[in-house]
């Protein structure tokens, strides 16, 4: 689920890469301030993307100032100015998401395999409660998505669209939260398509692993052979990414536009290529 929507560094300008890292570092510091140092270990690039996308369309100007990394004081990093509201929101979403993912993993694995996660759960339950106090809607959105996702995956006749729908809807709501009018509607669609991409990319990556462990995969039972299944999955991903690109073209982000373009046009394609390469090894 995590780490599928990334930048493609070779095609990114240095200034954009530094901005991207700056958002990552700012989010890290924010999680540390709101939820403690240990919680920072949960940070990943998916949340960075959510923060970046929200900051891209936020009204207040977000600049950067020089600072130092808390983990590694010899390393310089950039910190966002004026992005506190958005970063707080994304930090809360991260805590809630990690908690629900832990619960999900514990349910899916045996007692011993899930032992470490069971130890971590009370810690993240506290973080989730705090996040819920600050942003109650976040817990509602993510909680609802997880239970709907569970229901859909238990059905045997759910198609690709129905399976991706709960996660995609959650991402749409998280992206558009706090915005109004047409911007909110457009962001909700962009978030929906991005969430759909993440879900399908995860399924594409796990086609064979899930077959081995008999876990649910949306691409199971599609296509007569492995090649057909892979081709179909790639087709679905391409169609979704194309629609996402089109939707993004129609918006005019106030900042970070080139980073978002890099993610949609180059990042997704590169992730798919990487998955394919790993598979051929």
């Amino acid at each position, binding site marked *: 689920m995590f780490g599928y929507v990334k930048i493609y560094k070779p095609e990114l300008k240095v200034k954009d890469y530094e901005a991207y890292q700056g958002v990552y570092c700012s989010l890290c510091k924010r999680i540390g301030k709101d939820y403690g140092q240990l919680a920072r270990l949960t940070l990943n690039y998916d949340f960075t993307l959510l923060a970046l996308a929200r900051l891209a369309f936020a009204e207040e100007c977000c600049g950067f100032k020089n600072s130092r990394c808390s983990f590694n004081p010899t390393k310089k990093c950039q910190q966002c100015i004026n992005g506190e509201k958005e970063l707080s929101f994304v930090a809360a979403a991260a805590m809630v998401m990690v908690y629900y993912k832990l619960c999900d993993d514990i349910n899916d694995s045996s007692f011993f395999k899930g032992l470490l996660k069971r130890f971590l759960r009370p810690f993240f339950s506290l973080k989730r409660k705090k996040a819920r106090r600050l942003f109650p809607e976040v817990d509602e959105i993510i909680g609802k998505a997880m239970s709907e996702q569970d229901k859909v995956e238990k059905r045997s006749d759910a198609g690709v*669209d129905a399976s991706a*729908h709960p996660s995609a809807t959650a991402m749409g709501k998280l992206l558009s939260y706090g915005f109004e009018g047409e911007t909110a*509607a457009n962001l909700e669609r962009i978030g929906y398509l991005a969430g759909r991409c993440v879900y399908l990319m995860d399924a594409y990556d796990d086609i064979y692993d899930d077959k081995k462990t008999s876990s649910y995969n949306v691409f199971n039972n599609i296509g007569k052979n492995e090649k057909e299944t892979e081709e179909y999955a790639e*087709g679905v991903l*391409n169609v*979704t990414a194309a*629609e996402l690109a089109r939707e993004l073209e129609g918006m005019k982000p106030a900042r970070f536009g080139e980073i978002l373009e890099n993610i949609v*046009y180059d990042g997704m394609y590169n992730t798919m290529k990487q998955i394919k390469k790993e598979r051929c090894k």
Partner: protein
Amino acid sequence: MRDPFEILGLSPGASDEQVKNAYRELARRYSDAGSMPDPARMREIDTAYDEIILGRTGNGGTSYSEPTYTYTVPNDLGDIRAKIKSGKFDDAETLLDGVPVSNRTAEWYYLKGTVQHRKGWLEEAARNFEQATRLDPSNPEYRQAYSNIKSDRSGGYRTEKSTGGRSGCSGCDICSGLLCADCCCECMGGDLIRCC
């Protein structure tokens, strides 16, 4: 105007789900594609539904404008097209689902595909567009919709990446610039490029 709940045959405390079901049932009967088409009654039903739903949810995320019922459109699904045009995708889908399976034409599949495409259900949309072109191969609108999705499947969108701001000088620009300069020069009596 009569009480909107009375028009839909419901009690004032009816839930959103009950309102939608009642609307669907009535649309099945009185809409252009229904069993007993009655445009005036359908207009009344539409207004009642809008009043109840809008009154409860305020302004939803979709962009609302005055409903335009284009009954001059010769096809049966004109009111559904109008809803799609004015951004009321949920209502359009409700109406579409109310059409019995035996009455579903190529246009029904095209409009259903359009609504699903907007929702983000791209695979179902592709399937519906394909069915529409199968039922009516001569229609360019349906063919266009289907071929757009088909061409997206191969990953062609990456070549359409906008290169805004990177307007350099290509070879074509230089050559045509020189040709123009040569013509202007010759008009003045000179000759920039002797062989042209």
